[in-house]
Every structure is written in structure tokens, then in C-alpha cells.
């Protein structure tokens, strides 16, 4: 190989190395440009929905079952036969009877930059429930102030529970909303019961009783409507 060819080869090798390095750099930049969701959203309280029998309720008009989440300002609606509990985490819980509709707002003041002076009470977290229909029970934890409003802005304010621990549950039903009360008693298994169970179980296995709906307290047996 002549000297000229050697030089050409060297130049070509350097050029290729440079080109590969450029591609690598560009790819690495492209990699770091993927979105960071955490940078888009401020830390805030997101609360959990639990429904009876994992049946769906409506959160802002969208079907939501147990394990779903909601942020402040959500409109929650329970259908007939389905109750729900909103776990507000450190703030408490909100129970909704079937056929209820509420607007739920909650907030906690940001932590002060400096520790508060001794003797001064920190500002409480607030939970505000506007009941549009149905019955609700609001249970707040220590340091949370609960408030229930009606659509007509009537107010039932819960005492600030900072000093005496958790506040008393606050019940409210809109006029005309029936109080949901149902108690089931579990009896021992006698022969008659067993016979009834066998017959009933057989019917259920055959799908006879399921045909009418009813809403058994079962887990999600249909795993996912998704495309696997």
C-alpha cells in the first residue's frame, strides 16, 4: 500500500470515527429529551376510591372502580346499589351512600419555611363536600377541618378538630334521600341451609340467578377488557 493510500485510509477512518461519535452524541441527547412527568405536575394530594363490590361509580363523569384516584374538585356520583368510600389519606374518609352526588374539595396549606413559634397552631387542612344528592358521612382526622355544604349553600361546619383529636363523623342527607341501612345476619349451616346452598349454588353455577344482575360482592372476575 502506497503512502498516499495509507493517508487516504487514515483520513477515512478519522472521518468515520467522527461520524459515529456525532450519531452517538445525537442519540444520547434524544434519549435525555424524553418527557419527565414529575416536572410537569406539582406534588399534591391524590386520594383513593373504594367502591362496594368493586363496582364502578362516576368520577367527573368517568367510570371508576376501586383503586381509582381523584384530585380536588372532583364530582363523584354513586349509582343505585353502589356505595363508595373516598380515602382522603391524612385528612380522613368520605362515605357516599348509593344514589349520591357530591363535589369534593380538599387542601392542605404548604408547610411553613420556618418552624412555627411555640403556642401557635398550624393552619388546618380543609375538606369541603358539596352534597348535590344523597347521603354522605365525612370523618376527618386530627388537624383537618371538615365542612358540608348543600347546593343551596347551606353550611354544616364541623368543629376544628385540632385539639380534641379526630372530629366526630359528620352525617348529611339531602331532603328526600333515604338513609341506607341494611344488616345481614350470618346463620350457622344446618342441613336445610346446606340443601338450600347446594340448590342455590347449582342454580348460580348454571347462571340462573346471575341473569337478574343483583350485584354480588365479588372481585373483578373478568380480568381486563384490554387487548393482551
Amino acid at each position: 500500500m502506497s503512502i498516499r493510500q495509507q493517508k487516504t485510509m487514515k483520513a477515512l477512518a478519522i472521518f468515520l470515527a467522527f461520524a459515529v461519535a456525532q450519531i452517538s452524541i445525537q442519540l444520547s441527547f434524544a434519549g435525555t429529551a424524553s418527557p419527565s412527568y414529575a416536572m410537569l405536575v406539582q406534588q399534591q394530594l391524590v386520594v383513593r376510591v373504594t367502591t362496594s363490590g368493586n363496582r364502578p361509580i362516576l368520577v367527573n363523569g368517568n367510570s371508576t372502580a376501586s383503586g381509582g384516584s381523584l384530585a380536588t374538585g372532583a364530582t363523584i356520583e354513586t349509582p343505585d346499589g353502589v356505595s363508595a368510600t373516598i380515602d382522603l389519606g391524612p385528612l380522613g374518609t368520605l362515605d357516599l351512600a348509593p344514589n349520591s352526588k357530591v363535589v369534593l374539595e380538599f387542601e392542605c396549606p404548604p408547610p411553613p419555611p420556618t418552624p412555627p413559634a411555640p403556642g401557635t397552631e398550624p393552619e388546618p387542612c380543609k375538606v369541603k363536600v358539596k352534597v348535590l344528592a344523597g347521603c354522605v358521612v365525612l370523618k376527618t382526622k386530627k388537624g383537618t377541618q371538615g365542612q358540608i355544604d348543600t347546593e343551596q349553600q347551606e353550611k354544616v361546619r364541623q368543629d376544628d378538630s385540632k385539639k380534641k383529636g379526630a372530629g366526630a363523623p359528620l352525617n348529611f342527607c339531602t331532603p328526600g334521600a333515604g338513609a341506607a341501612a341494611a344488616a345481614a345476619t350470618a346463620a350457622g349451616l344446618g342441613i336445610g341451609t346446606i340443601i338450600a346452598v347446594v340448590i342455590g349454588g347449582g342454580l348460580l353455577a348454571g347462571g340462573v340467578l346471575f341473569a337478574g344482575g343483583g350485584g354480588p360482592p365479588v372481585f373483578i372476575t373478568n380480568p381486563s377488557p384490554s387487548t393482551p
Partner: protein
Amino acid sequence: MPSERTRHAFSLLIPLGWSQTALSSAANNFFNTVNSKLLEHGATRLLFLLVAIGLCACVVTSTARFGLARIFVKYSLGTGNLTVAEQATEMAPRDPETHRAWAAALTLSPNRAELARELEQAIALRPSDYTQWEELGLVRDQMGDPAGALTAFDEAVKRAPFYALPRWQRGNLLLRIGQYDSAFTDLNQAAQSNPEFIPNLIDLAWSLSHSDPKVVQQLVQVNSKTTHTAMAKFFASHGEPQEAISQLRAAGSVDDETLRQMIDNLLGKGSFSEAYQVWRTAKGLGNAGLQSGPQILDGGFEAALNFDEGGFSWRVPSRLQATTVSLDSSQPHTGSKSLRIEFVGGSYPGAALLSQLILVEPGRHYKINFASRSQDIVTGGLPILIVTDASGDHRTLGQSPLLSKGTTNWNVVSFDFASQPTTKAVVLTIQRQGCSTAPCPIFGVLSLDSFSIEQLK
């Protein structure tokens, strides 16, 4: 000696290709050996019999217990009976279904720890079932154990990596514990897999972004027509018309129902100009907007009337009391048709007989022209045209003189109105003026034609 039937059954076990002689010889040898060595004593025979009966009884009992347990499982799942579920577990403790049924029945009780234990037992018996892990994750989450819940959801996702629900549940948990990056990755993948989650994802993103449409579009990373359509509808109904239009364009061609919903949502939020754009797209009329100035569409009633119109063309109520609205080609004022409204008795005076939504500019003066003709109109409450603000307080901005009673030829009528500083659209309505007494019937035929609007200097 074995019977012929037994010998035949034995022969079936002999591989093909063996000769009948060899077969017969083998069968004979076998049964002779058994006969001679084992079954020749009565006590041995009895022992064999007892063992066989015992085995059968054992199998029958196990099968019966298993079957009964499964029936109990069905019953407890159907009724939520805890006692029956517990009984099923005792009957078949190695059957994961019984533990799962008990766990399902326990969901009604406040004892979450026992519920979690039952699920863990069911999982130990059948660890590959992702739904059980998912349920365990939910229960642990309810027990205030997010770390345990996350572990369970991780297992569920590991076993069903392409299914939506495990990822959706894990994403929600991660969201609540503030791990937004992982949360939205999971939520997006879940929505990608199952588009039913898209509206929930958009709503969550909207809430968490404090109603910032730009952030919502960054959080929802599912690039599909379904997502763009859902976002378009969402933004339209949440007062973000520009974003709605942008998403609608990204979605490409969409069905008429979606366009109708979009128009309704935009109109509901007072986004008249954007609704007009979508309406024109839906009608295939191009993108001309306000540039050509305000206009009354089909002022000559040349096109067919649509009783389902919810946009910017003539709106005719599908049910009118004692009134018939139709197109008439007998004696039009201009063009080839006019509108014919026939009154045959007691119609409600305040009801709109016909209306049209018209885009206008705020704080301007306009003039509406039209031609009317009456035939044998008899009433105490004559027809009239009214212009009202399409949003806000729906204030009346102008009205025509009362249309003629009796019989007249075509008359050209004009009236002015001024839009308010906040007015973006007006509604032109044909109705009747109220009577001084009730009832207020009307008889005769009113014909209308040649509607136009002009902006006054």
C-alpha cells in the same frame, strides 16, 4: 380362567401387528399367572376387593367434597355468604378458588387483614394468576400498606405485562404516593392497551395539571385517533376551544356523532366561532369563517330542512303543537322554494317555530331582511321574529314588527338590532307573541323567504 370379555379387553392393549396366536397366548399366560399366584386364595381376593372399595370411596369422597366446595364457592360468590365461603375452604383447603371466594366474601367485612391472608393463601396455591395479585394489591392499599400493595401490583404486571388493568391499578397507586414519572408511564401504557381508560387518564391529567391543556397534552402520551378525539371532546367541554380544534385536526376524519358532540360541547361553553368551524367541517363546507361577515345560512330555504340540526343551519323542532312546517315551491319570493308554516289551532305562543344561530361581532349594529306572506291568518297572538343573545343572559336584542294577519302578498320586512359588548352570536327565532287571554289559538298559513343579514356602518 378369564372370561371371553376380559380376554377381549386385554387384547385391545396388545400393540398392532401382533399375531392373533401371540395375542391369545400372552393373554392366557397373564391371566393364568394372576390366577395361580394371587387370586387362588379367598382371603387375598377379599383384601383386593376391600382395597379397591376403599380407593373408590376415597375418590368418591374427595370428588364430592371438591364438587360441593365448588358449589359453595359459587353460592358464596353469588350471595356474599361468609359462612358458606368458610365451609368451602374447610372442605377443599388446597383449592385456590375456595380461598378466593372466602376473600371475596370478606370484602364486605372490615377485617382487611384476614382478607389479605386469604388472598395470600390463594396466591400460594396458584401464584401465576395475575388477578389474585391485583386483588391483593388493592386490599393492601386499602390497609394502608402502599409498599405491600406495590409489590403485589408489580407481580400482577409481571404476570400480565400487556394487560391494562394491572398497570392502571399500579399507576394509580404510584400517583397517590407521588411517583409521577412511573405513574404516568403505567397509566399511559394502560390507556394504550385499553382505550376505555383514556377519558379517565385525561381527566386525571387535567386535575393534576390544574386545568392546563398544554400540560395535559404532555402527560397523556397515547398517540392514537381515539385519544385525540377524546381530548378534543374533553377540551371542548372544558372551555378550551383552540386546543379542542387542534386535537380534532390531529384525530383526522371522525364520525358524525363525534362532530355533533363537539359542536354541542363548544356551543355549551360559548365557543361559537370554533363550533362554527367544526360545523362547517362536518357539513363539508370548507373553512370559511367570520371573514365573509355574518350570514344567514340558506336564507331562501332552498336546501332540505333537518329536524336534528344542532348547528348553524335552520333549526326546526321535531314536535310542534298544532303547527306544520314544510318547504313550499308553489310561489316563492326568490329562488325555487319558500318556508310554509301552517297553523291549525292551539299552539303555544312562546315556542320557537324556527331558529338559526348566527355569528356576529360584539358591539355592532345589524339589519335583518326577510319576506313574509300571510294566508287567512286569524289569531290573537301574531307571529314575530326575535333576535336574542346566544349566551349570557339571552337578552332580546331586537325584534321585527308583528307579521300581518289576514291575507297579504309577499312583503319585505327589515329590523335592526345591536350586539352587546360580549355578544359573539345571536339566535334568530320565529315565534308568536303572547295573547292577552288563554287559550291562544292560531289558524292560517305563514310563508317566509329571502332572509339576509347585513352589518350597518
